[in-house]
């Protein structure tokens, strides 16, 4: 099955390897984590709409209880159905994206088998707590999506998603006036927690609201292809 002996090129036999077993480059995998209802699925849908003309995309959802996220994406027809897969997570969504990523890796493989070479796989985690992060064995980069309505103290509280994700997305800025969230304070706290790591404030209710995040994905893709 393998062309090389595992000890000759061990990196080719791991799933973080950028090379597939047939020698081609595998898709860049980006995880989207964050609390329940922050706008992960909405961001996935907006990214698919923004990028599907230029990239071959597939999506994996990790629903907690239902297939709702996958079904929502199917209903919205952001991608053809064969490009959307739901993984079941056994009451522990963070386990499926961090401690035991086997079902998600299988879903990635199945998608690549079913629809051919992909440029980008978006992996949405089930809405979870602030400590949930993706394994590097599963994704190459991860964004953490929070929203202004979930409390403007979340950036200050920190946690691995807020402090360590490759991109922090603060969603639903359109709601800030209605819920009394202080966006400047959120930005200050986020910068304090994250140092140089980027933060994006977005509202998906506005025209092309996902543009900054889509540009960030384009940059990651360019870096991935150049590497």
């Amino acid at each position, binding site marked *: 099955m393998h062309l090389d002996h595992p000890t000759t090129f061990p990196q080719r036999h791991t*799933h973080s390897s950028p090379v597939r077993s047939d020698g081609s480059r595998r898709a860049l995998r980006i995880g989207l984590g964050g609390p329940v209802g922050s706008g992960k699925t909405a961001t996935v849908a907006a990214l698919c709409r923004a990028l599907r003309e230029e990239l071959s995309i597939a999506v994996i959802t990790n629903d907690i209880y*239902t297939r709702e996220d996958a079904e929502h994406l199917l209903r919205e027809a952001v991608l053809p159905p064969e490009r959307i897969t739901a*993984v079941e997570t056994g*009451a522990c969504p963070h*386990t*499926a994206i961090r401690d*035991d990523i*086997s079902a998600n*890796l*299988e879903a990635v493989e199945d998608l690549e088998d079913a629809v051919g070479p992909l440029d980008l796989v978006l992996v949405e985690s089930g809405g979870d707590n602030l400590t949930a992060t993706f394994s590097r064995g599963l994704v190459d980069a991860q964004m953490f999506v929070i929203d202004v309505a979930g409390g403007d103290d979340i950036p200050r509280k920190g946690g691995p998603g807020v402090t360590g994700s490759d991109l922090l997305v603060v969603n639903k800025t359109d709601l800030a006036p209605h819920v009394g969230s202080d966006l400047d304070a959120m930005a200050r706290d986020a910068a304090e927690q994250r140092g140089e790591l980027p933060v994006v404030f977005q509202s998906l209710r506005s025209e092309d609201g996902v543009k900054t995040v889509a540009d960030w994905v384009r940059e990651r893709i360019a870096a991935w292809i150049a590497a």
Partner: protein
Amino acid sequence: MSRSALLILADGRFPAGGHAHSGGAEAAVAAGRITDAVSLHAFCRGRLHTAGLVAAALAAAAADGVEPLALDEAADARTASAALRTASRRLGRQLMRAAHAAWPDPQLDALAAALPRGAHQPVVLGVAARAGGLGPLDAAHCAAYESVGGPATAVVRLLGLDPFDATAVLAGLGPDLDTVAERAVTAARSAAVQGVEALPAASAPLLDIGAETHAARATRLFAS
């Protein structure tokens, strides 16, 4: 070396996908058949002596070197529920990935190449045990323990059952686990001589029925 491999393979944290499966416990909870530690014990004991015994014998035979593809067919024939056949192959494929990382081995590769969509989990378990330097009795113990460990963990999550009570249920099943593992090895030894027909074919119809109704549910926490 081999005892350490056994601990790694039997560890519930071994990343082989088992955490997303309840071993039929979610269906039994939904049907009101598991409500507390006493009914969990009854459920686990029944599963151990039926599905658990069959899985342990398949795993022991594979660890003993019986042809994995013949065992895979035997597993198919012994798994009445289509949903459970699918779950078992999926778990087998996931276990293959973890086993390949832990104990790279030509026999694992050969099985993965022959059945890229996944061999039945107990068969992969036996081949993985062999790759890790373990024997048939170790493989049987692993399979037997898994057949009750999965449901017990799931019920802690589903019912909020006291985790100490769930662990006590497992410990209480210790003698049964040992008996089942030994019976499985005896059967596997017969299968090595007489063929896979000698393997046990015990079944629990309620587990099969529960698995089918579970697979048809729109909302559930566990994949099976």
